[in-house]
């Protein structure tokens, strides 16, 4: 019985945290926020060199061949640091091709994705809250037509895994004709999103796409939960730090019992949920019959908690917490992304209720 991560995994987390802290401190994140770029090629290059782009790509295709748990741990650390860039969409694209692709497709795309020469993304959402595979209406028989919303950094991706009715998942090259990328002004400026409109764009179905589509969704839910966990713990740490330094009435405000208890409650809301995303990630690779439900529970619970903690964090900082200059907003907006992407918490609670046969 070992409900814990390994030393290698701890090292991965520590290394990534250090890297983000050094290479992309809040001052730099803020520059990206202000510029609207949401993309720091040098920062991503560094991650690529650390092997992050290919964490879950099988070793025979040049990746590290790790599991979803490793990917989720990386997501937590990157979120804690507030890291910008395409990690989320790219990782899901790697997973989709690994899970559902033909040998030829894997051989064609995975090596480049693993080394970061190519960038991948996933197009899952459709308007009106249609995030789940069974809700997709975009058609993908031979060619793709229809609109996908909230596609991470679609404008820079080389290949996009598109969720479609029927075959489930298809590959589309961004430069193909019939692919139009419309920038979307998203809330989290370090993880930009686009709307992608397909009009008869050439595509190639993943042979196992229909089975891989819900798996891909589950992996996405776990990564969002991990990201929200990292964001929430960062916010709690920021509040504690602030309470230890800010003085009013001649003492640091951490002396005030009301605030102290608010901070305790925030920590209590998030810390115990760490195991939720660990377990869901572990189940994805090892306990298949609990994978779907545990991913839904983790996403619903953690992203809800993170959103509430974000609001509490503003309050714990007083007026300054509400300003653009205060770092709270950077993670607040990250939490908003994590909460809404792939469907809000109540959607996944009802899914988990159904999966439990309630």
């Amino acid at each position, binding site marked *: 019985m070992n409900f814990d991560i390994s030393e290698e995994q701890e090292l991965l987390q520590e290394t990534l945290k250090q890297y983000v802290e050094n290479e992309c401190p809040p001052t730099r994140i803020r520059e990206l926020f202000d510029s609207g770029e949401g993309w720091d090629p040098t920062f991503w290059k560094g991650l690529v060199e650390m092997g992050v782009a290919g964490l879950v790509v099988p070793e025979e295709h040049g990746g590290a061949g790790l599991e979803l748990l490793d990917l989720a741990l990386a997501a937590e650390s990157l979120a804690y640091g507030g890291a910008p860039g395409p990690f989320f969409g790219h990782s899901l694209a790697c997973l989709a091709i690994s899970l559902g692709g033909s040998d030829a497709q894997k051989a064609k795309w995975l090596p480049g994705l693993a080394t970061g020469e190519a960038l991948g993304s996933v197009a899952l959402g459709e308007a009106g809250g249609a995030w789940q595979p069974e809700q997709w209406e975009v058609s993908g028989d031979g060619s793709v037509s229809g609109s996908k919303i909230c596609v991470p950094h679609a404008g820079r991706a080389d290949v996009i895994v598109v969720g479609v009715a029927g075959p489930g998942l298809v590959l589309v090259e961004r430069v193909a004709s019939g692919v139009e990328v419309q920038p979307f002004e998203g809330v989290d400026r370090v993880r930009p999103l686009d709307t992608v409109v397909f009009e008869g764009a050439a595509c190639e179905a993943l042979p196992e796409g229909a089975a891989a589509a819900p798996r891909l969704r589950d992996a996405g839910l776990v990564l969002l939960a991990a990201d929200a966990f990292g964001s929430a713990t960062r916010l709690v740490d920021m509040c504690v730090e602030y309470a230890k330094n800010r003085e009013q009435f*001649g003492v640091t405000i951490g*002396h005030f019992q009301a605030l102290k208890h608010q901070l305790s409650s925030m920590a209590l809301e998030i810390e115990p949920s760490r195991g939720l995303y660990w377990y869901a990630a572990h189940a994805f690779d090892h306990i298949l019959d609990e994978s779907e439900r545990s991913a839904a529970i983790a996403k619903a619970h953690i992203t809800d908690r993170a959103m509430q903690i974000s609001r509490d964090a503003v309050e714990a900082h007083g007026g300054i917490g509400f300003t653009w200059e205060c770092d709270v907003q950077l993670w607040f907006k990250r939490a908003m992304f994590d909460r809404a992407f792939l469907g809000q918490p109540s959607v996944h609670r009802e899914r988990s209720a159904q999966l439990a046969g309630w």
Partner: protein
Amino acid sequence: MDLSYGKEYDEFRAQVRSFLEENWPPQGGASRDDGGRQFRQAAIERGYLYRNIPKRYGGSEQEADSIAAQIIREEFGAKHAPMEIRAIGMMMLVPTLLERAEEWQKEKFVRPTVMGEITWCQGYSEPGSGSDLASLQTRGVLEGDEWVINGQKIWTTSAMEADWMFCLVRTEPDVPKHAGISYLLIPMKQPGIEVRPLKQMNGTAEFNEVFFTDARTPADHIVGQRGEGWLVSRTTLKHERNSIAAAAQAAATFQGLVQFARDTKRGGRPVIEDPLVREQLAILEGYVCAHEYSGLRQFTKDAKGESPGIISMMNKLHSTNIGSMVAKASLEIMGEDGLMDPVQTGLAKLGVIPSGSQAWLNQYMYSLGIAVAGGTANIQRNVIGERGLGLPRDHYANRSSGK
């Protein structure tokens, strides 16, 4: 209990109506500005505006009558007629001047402020002095016949436009903290003052920081004596409280939220059919109605000249709580629109009901600003507990003298 205003006010309402009939909108070719100015003047002469301001300073000097005031608001509002200028100078400074200032100060400042000819901003909060306001550090030193001011203020609304600031400044550095503060009137348009907008997380900037570097104001531009500033700033004049308006605003926002749930579709169906959303809205409606009726209760007590009691200490926190529930419900309703950037909609404003996801997103973040702007919730809870329920004073606040 009687939800009409009573027969005795029927005639008063009729008078107000006929006044409006005759005077608004302005006849002939008067420009909107001129027309407004003339209309206001006429309304003052009839005793409809600036009712708590003495005539010699431009007001209409009426007996306090909350019901009359409410009728005026209703009728003027229905006709979109100009009302009182509800800027901070009018709301906060004028009562203070009337109570505390020297005659020449009243003459110089009250009438132009009432008439909107000069505008004010408030200089209280500082980066290091929030809930513990009396610890403020902005320094004023008397050099010859001028105060020389150095320091910084924050959360200053309208600092860009204002002509003057009423400002708390530490002028007696050697006495205990509350006793060392003076209340100065400082001209804003001078080289020693720099105003920087303070951008909020929703991308807009409704507040400013104000930096003083050897800023100056004449020695006699002080209200009250040196070191009396803290007391002066606590002055409030008895006036016709508008306890209905704030609650009505909450009700209107709530109706906007219901509309948002009707208009938003998920899976092709209006979100308002979702049992979870219905329940959330219904819970919220309980609070909104309670808030509205509390407003009416306070209004009635005010009109009778009775104290509304503990309920009047609860308004801010209750409305902050409602704001927070509204925000959460709106996020639930908007679904994946929560991924949008709120900035594009521009200003969120009190009194404007949002429409559409981005406006509600803006509201979502703005509600946080409201929560912290009106004194943080914890300060409000202290007030309810200590002044309302009679629990013992806070240990730390106790240690600082005064306040």
